[in-house]
């Protein structure tokens, strides 16, 4: 046993202990930084006595609501906005809205239905996104040679939906198109990939524009008109085979698996532009954002269910900082210059606002068409679940 200690040794031990303490603190801080965010979650910046405001939103707006700057702006008003994602169809039909302050579906028809049912006095449409087609250079060139796509003077690509529908109806394969042997020798049918029409809003937007064109450039509004176009519409979805339920999935396949897997994907313009602005290198030089002619706007619409929900809606519609942040995620706020500035500051060419835009059918007609197409799948549509990204 050591009963007494040399002072030099004592000092040395003291220094070592002090050093260990410092290392310990540094490690703890480092550890916290490294893993705190991943495993802790739910840390709210700013005042801790925030009022929780509950929103049910379309999944494509989740990254926006999770942005720390967005959270900070809501926190100024004393709000902690907590979100659950759900498909717009689900929000309109099956999600339990008890205790929910606002819903934020990505389509006007769904918002209209909720407004009617909840007797909400007002709605806010703070931003929108045109439907677009994520595709590739060799594909647009093939489509151009076949008279299905055109490039305007400004360099923007457009898909002629009428010519496209005719090509699909004729069972056209990629390999049938002039120049395909070199560019894209695939025996697959010329067909846009979309999400599952039974579950996802972006597919419903695709159905909206296609049914308009198939119905002689008129919005489908009667059972007769629906009956006349439904076979052609059903083929657009059934012939794709398996399609995912969330709008992220086909776009991620487009990005990671490329042209062989997804030559054309129906997306929200915001998905493509937001990804481009994120600067992660996923959007490469041979990728092209093409606009369907006509297109449909996905109007992200807030339906407030409580006073706090109303305040959130107002903030989204009026706070210029939130508009700027929405533009960062590729959405188009009411003020077009905010969108243009955001793209320009990221060195991305500003796509012109589409001019040939049609309105989706009424909620009831759209639902009726979707139900008729759904019936042609043999698997019953999955039960709604509010926590699945649709």
């Amino acid at each position, binding site marked *: 046993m050591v009963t007494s200690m040399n002072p030099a040794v004592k000092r040395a031990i003291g220094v070592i202990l002090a050093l260990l303490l410092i290392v310990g603190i540094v490690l703890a801080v480092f550890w916290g930084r490294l893993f705190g965010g991943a495993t802790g979650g739910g840390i709210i910046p700013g005042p801790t006595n925030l009022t929780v405001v509950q929103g049910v939103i379309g999944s494509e707006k989740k990254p926006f609501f999770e942005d720390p700057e967005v959270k900070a702006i809501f926190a100024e008003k004393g709000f902690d906005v907590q979100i659950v994602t759900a498909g717009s169809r689900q929000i309109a039909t099956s999600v339990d809205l008890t205790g929910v302050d606002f819903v934020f579906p990505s389509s006007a028809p769904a918002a209209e239905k909720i407004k009617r049912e909840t007797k909400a006095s007002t709605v806010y449409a703070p931003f929108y996104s045109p439907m677009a087609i994520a595709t590739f250079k060799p594909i647009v060139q093939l489509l151009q040679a076949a008279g299905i796509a055109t490039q305007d003077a400004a360099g923007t690509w457009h898909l002629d939906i009428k010519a496209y529908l005719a090509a699909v109806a004729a069972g056209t394969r990629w390999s049938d198109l002039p120049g395909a042997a070199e560019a894209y020798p695939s025996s697959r049918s010329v067909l846009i990939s979309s999400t599952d029409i039974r579950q996802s809003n972006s597919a419903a937007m695709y159905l909206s524009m296609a049914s308009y064109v198939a119905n002689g450039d008129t919005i489908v509004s009667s059972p007769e008109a629906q009956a006349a176009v439904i076979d052609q519409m059903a083929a657009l979805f059934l012939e794709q085979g398996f399609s995912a339920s969330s709008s992220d999935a086909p776009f991620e396949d487009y990005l990671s698996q490329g042209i062989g897997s997804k030559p054309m994907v129906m997306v929200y313009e915001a998905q493509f532009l937001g990804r481009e602005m994120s600067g992660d290198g996923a959007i490469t030089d041979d990728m092209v954002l093409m606009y369907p002619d006509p297109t449909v706007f996905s109007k992200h619409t807030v339906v407030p269910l409580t006073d706090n929900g109303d305040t959130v809606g107002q903030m989204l519609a009026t706070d210029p900082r939130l508009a700027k942040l929405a533009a960062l995620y590729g959405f188009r706020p009411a003020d077009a210059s905010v969108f243009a500035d955001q793209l320009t500051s990221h060195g991305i060419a500003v796509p012109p606002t589409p001019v040939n835009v049609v309105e989706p059918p009424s909620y009831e007609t759209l639902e009726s068409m979707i139900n008729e197409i759904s019936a042609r*799948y043999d698997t019953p549509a*999955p039960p709604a679940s509010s926590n699945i990204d649709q």
Partner: protein
Amino acid sequence: MRRRLGLSAVIAATALLLTGCIPSVVTEGDGTGLPNDGQTLRILAGSEVKDMVPILEQAASETGVKVAFEYVGTLEGTELVAFGGAAGKYDATWFPNNRYLSLLPGASSAITASVKIMSSPVVLGLSQSVARELGWDATAPTWAELATAASEGKFTYGMTNPAASNSGFSALVAVATALSGTGSALTDADITAVTPQMTSFFSGQKLTAGSSGFLADKFVANPDVVDGIINYESVLMGLDTPEPLTIITPTDGVVTSDYPLTLLSSADASKKPLFDTLTDWLTTKKVQSEIVEQTNRRPGVPGVDTGSTFPPGILFETPFPNTLDVANTLISTYLESVRSPAQTLFVLDTSGSMEGDRIANLQQALKNLAGADESTAGGFAAFRSRERVTLIPFNYGPETPIVIEVPDGDKTQALSEIRDQADSLFADGGTAIYDSLEAAYRLALTQQKERPDTFVSIVLMTDGENTDGATESDFEQFYQSLGAGKTKIATYVVLFGDANVEELTRVATLTGGKVFDALNGDLAGAFQEIRGYQ
């Protein structure tokens, strides 16, 4: 799903005993459930992801998230998830894809989030010389060209059973869709129309297996049996065959697996952060590059530079069926009318020790294969049209074989006869394992000679030590003395009751078979799994 006895399981179990805590990566549970704590994600996985273990060990040391795996066939595991059987036992799944899952009613509410980690297409790996001869080294063929060449006997191949394994199912979808020539997703009508062409293509299939890994091992061990195998590109690139393989990617489309790591809705809320941490880590560019390098899979996220690891050119993706009916019709058409028939010999221990529950268990297991199990998976495991089923019960020696022919068409009569035969089994006498197995081999060789274009295999089920007649070494000598064809007749051993694990594992290995564990009493499960290999 049963644990398979493997080195990894032994190592994992040893590690548990030695340290008293859960190791960073556990492969296979011990039948009573996977270890579970606040840092462990319990994953029901396809055996395909076994090669991810080293990367997951790294994940555990870098992120603190540990993983415990239980392996199961994609279709079987998928049904378990969709029908609620995975809830509480597992937190997540990791199958080659979730497409079949999404076709099952109830599946989408069973899962809550999924992240695609990596991808690999299912393609054909063919001996270089054969590929050259057919000109496929220079110009990749279509599936129709493959079908023509196969029917002309120009090449043979192995493929897994599509009812048991995802790679076989993926290939089946690709070939049927391509042969249908519609350019769109397959329909029921297409399947009927392309059945003759599919039969041409599958006339070249001379090797079957219940898992992609077993198929690859079998091909490496017996490269002369077939000219190539259909498997994941990643597996084929990693194979060590005497002759290099040429990877053939049919130009009219392949089905790619995208390995989504998927969180179950039933998982405890505390598992979500683990899931997020692990999937974030796995999708970083650094880890993605390691996955490419170590497993030969393509990246699951964009922007990862893979250099010249993969052949250039566009990988055309085949549309996947979007209805359960089409998927199931495709599988049953393959099993019942397209593929070569099976000849299956069951060597069944009916010694005195089998009396009581054990013999009842055996009777039920046989009856399940003869139509008593009405589930989808049970249906796919049932005896098939054109199959010759031979039952050889034994005690002091083999009894007279009972041979039942399942006709092409209505199977009712034959299946009912098999059920009656199962009911008439009774337990008495000794355990002459090797005399009986030798008798089975003699009969199997005769049957093979009678019908050369069939898959012949033997199932040996015993619950105890060999007590009568030939010994293990006698059998080994007998087996070595057999002539040509011996490498094609495997013995799949079912361990039951007090069976001698080591000795029977040697028998399975000697014959190119595999051991299936029913020591926990689940004989029906083991029999069903073996059907994937027949």
